[in-house]
């Protein structure tokens, strides 16, 4: 499996679906017979994982939108967790 780097282009994993749920007032990740309710930071990262943007793009976009610098390590840590859980994958 490709290892995570700033040049990777993660996408929502096969079998998972990311969507806004107004009843939950949150983004959720759906998978067979289950649902994860995402906090706003997790949602901000995952909604940018479209398989086209690189990790570097995602980090700089988040830093720009939220006017915070030095988000890189936090974003990478979350992406590693999300990959491990199958929420994200790398598309060829």
């Amino acid at each position, binding site marked *: 499996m490709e290892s995570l780097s700033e040049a990777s282009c993660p996408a929502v994993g*096969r*079998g998972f*679906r990311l969507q806004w*749920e107004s*009843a939950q007032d949150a983004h959720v990740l*759906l*998978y*067979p*017979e289950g*649902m994860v309710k995402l906090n706003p930071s997790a949602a901000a990262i995952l909604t940018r994982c479209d398989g086209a943007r690189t990790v570097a793009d995602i980090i700089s976009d988040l830093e720009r939108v939220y006017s915070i610098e030095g988000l890189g390590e936090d974003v990478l840590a979350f992406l590693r967790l999300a990959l491990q859980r199958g929420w994200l994958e790398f598309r060829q």
Partner: protein
Amino acid sequence: MTAEARQAPSRRPGPPLWLLLELTYRCPLHCVFCYNPTDFPHVATELDTGEWLRVLREARALGAVQLGLSGGEPLVRNDLTAIVAEAHRLGFYTNLTTSGVGLTEERLAALKDAGLDHIQLSFQDSTPAMNDFLSSTHTFELKSKVAALIKKYRYPMVLNVVLHRLNIDHVEEILAMAERMGAEYVELANTQYYGWAWLNRAQLLPSRAQLLRAEQSMRRFRALVGSRLRIFFVVPDYFETRPKPCMNGLGRVFLAIAPDGVALPCHAARMLPGLSFPNVREASIESIWYDSAAFNHYRGEEWMKEPCRSCPERSRDFGGCRCQAYLLTGDAANADPVCDRSPHHHLVTRAVEQAAAAATGGQPLLFRGLRVRKGAG
């Protein structure tokens, strides 16, 4: 504590996150362990396409998000693709539970296009002879072909095998079959004793020795394959000393709609006496979920009797399964007798002992739908 204060915690429940549509009770298989009612309603009473689509829209508007499509065999409905398409458009995550009978390549392609997210395929055992005996059909080869199609259409392959005395000794062979087919997940679900399975309980309950051997085989296999093949083992609750948190509490997250439109807080709940379950033909999903007496009856803890009422574990297991309490003790408000704090626990241990003693003989297996039993159920 005043009555008002007692009622304060039972605020408006959350939405029915998990909607199960039992589209039909019709099924080409005749499985001996089926949980469907033994006196199932006639085909003529099934909801039509428009009615199912209305159920989907109303439940989704309340916040339902996971959709199960099951039965019976949902593929016998020729509007299944239309139902999946609308569910997908509405934002449901769609799960199909099927025997595979009727799942041609053409049909699967259409379902994939319609947005079907997930398929769970049932097998009855690891060999054509046992699979076909237990379902009283010749379906093993067909199921194997369907398994290949599921892979071809890039679905994760999820196999479900219901375990009982007649196949539990084949756990190793069943897992080997799953591996050969390239399955990603296998659910080994021990039989739950409702419906046809309840009638066949004396023939289906495994012995404790069988169960231990099966768990050992499963662990050996799990160590061998690692994360390549995930194995879920659903333990048979008759061998436990604490009950399952059935449905995570009735009326909390789960809403089932039976083929004839009857709304149920659990797919087996139809048997519970004294409750008049509302029908989607006569009431909206919103009024059924929030306002109907049947859905409010087992919410909260007011209905509980001792030992549940004062038990520190009541908020974790909700007293277990109401249907099991009713079937075994005659009162649905009793503690699930699986719990060893229940004064009726001996009914469960005795059933296990009797099953072990009478491992052969007794009444013959009753194959679902192949023998009409008046008043059974």
